[in-house]
């Protein structure tokens, strides 16, 4: 059933955020420390465990896959509620700090991603159940 997948996702989400809060208060930080990351790691391990035991039918996977596919629309909604007005009113200090930080980090990313051996690869686009038409278009462009 589809709800099994969504419930599994919800369980990992709640447990991860709870552990993140716990970790935060343990080290005396007033914020959640890696809750979403912990939730992701839990979901990854649970997927592998259930998959090995054959307890992960297509419908269950679809209950998670749908929310993964909703990711970009959710991000668009997130963009639509940013406090853009305050950001633009920040003045030169905010603007220069942000641009400076972004530029310097971009250079460091470019440097690190080009050094060392990169043996990681992405799965082909068709791998996922919910593939968007847009993804196919971009994948085609970037591979050409």
């Amino acid at each position, binding site marked *: 059933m589809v709800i099994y997948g969504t419930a599994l996702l919800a369980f990992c989400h709640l447990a991860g955020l709870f552990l993140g809060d716990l*970790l935060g208060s343990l080290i005396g930080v*007033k*914020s959640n*420390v*890696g*809750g*979403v*990351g912990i*939730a*992701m*790691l839990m*979901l*990854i391990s649970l997927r592998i465990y259930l998959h090995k035991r054959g307890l992960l039918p297509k419908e269950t996977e679809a209950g998670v896959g749908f*929310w*993964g596919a909703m*990711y*970009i*629309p*959710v*991000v*668009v*909604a*997130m*963009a*639509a*509620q*940013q*406090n*853009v007005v*305050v950001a*633009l*009113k*920040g*003045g030169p*200090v*905010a603007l*220069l*700090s*942000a*641009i400076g*930080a*972004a530029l310097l*980090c*971009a250079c*460091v*990313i*470019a440097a*690190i*991603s080009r050094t060392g051996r*990169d*043996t*990681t*690869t*992405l*799965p082909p686009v068709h791998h996922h159940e919910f593939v*968007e038409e*847009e*993804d196919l278009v*971009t994948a085609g*462009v970037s591979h050409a």
Partner: protein
Amino acid sequence: MLEMFNRVVAHNGLVTAFALVGVIMWLSAVLSRRLTFGHVHGSAIAIIIGLVLAYVGGTVTGGEKGLADLSLFAGVGLMGGAMLRDFAIVATAFEVQVTEARKAGLIGTVSLFLGTIIPFIVGASIAWAFGYSDAVSMTTIGAGAVTYIVGPVTGAAIGASSDVVALSIATGLIKAIIVMVATPFAAGFLGLKTPRSAMIFGGLAGTVSGVSAGLAATDRRLVPYGALVATFHTGLGCLLGPSLLFFATRALVA
């Protein structure tokens, strides 16, 4: 008639948001194909439209939550809020290939530390150059350059004034917007095409919102790898900001 329509829309906020975002996505896909011949990803255009709508919403209402402050579009606040955003991000973990993620775990962690320290130094230096030369203000603005949550959390912990805290939030927001908008265009320069590079990006570019939107607009398959690292960004920043980074700044300035 119009009143009835408005009532239906207002009473079904989340559903309205689904419809609205669907229209935005469709419009962006058309613009992407017709105007840029597929060179600019539809998602990138959709995110820019979202930011423009946020500006319009913020200007019209004077509120803090962009379009979501308009009662008609309050559902956008729920759809794009932290709950559903995190839910969707966790769901993308289903696509992570463990072997790939493990190969880049160390470099991802290194990037995470660099991604906290580098923006902090830049932010604190520029704050100093503009006359915010006390350790508390420098630290708060520097922390804002890490993420817009680290800024106010750090500022509150070390007792910064409210205008400095506002400045640090603005810094973090501008950085997040730059990362959202510029990433798809800078993807070639950044070398952003493998899980490893996405994890480096997630650590260094910071802010879950910036990383998630930037990667979504570049290649959807990179999202889980970047998000996996970026989600530790705010936590690490809130840990280092009011402690190590503040002490270091104080030692240097005093």
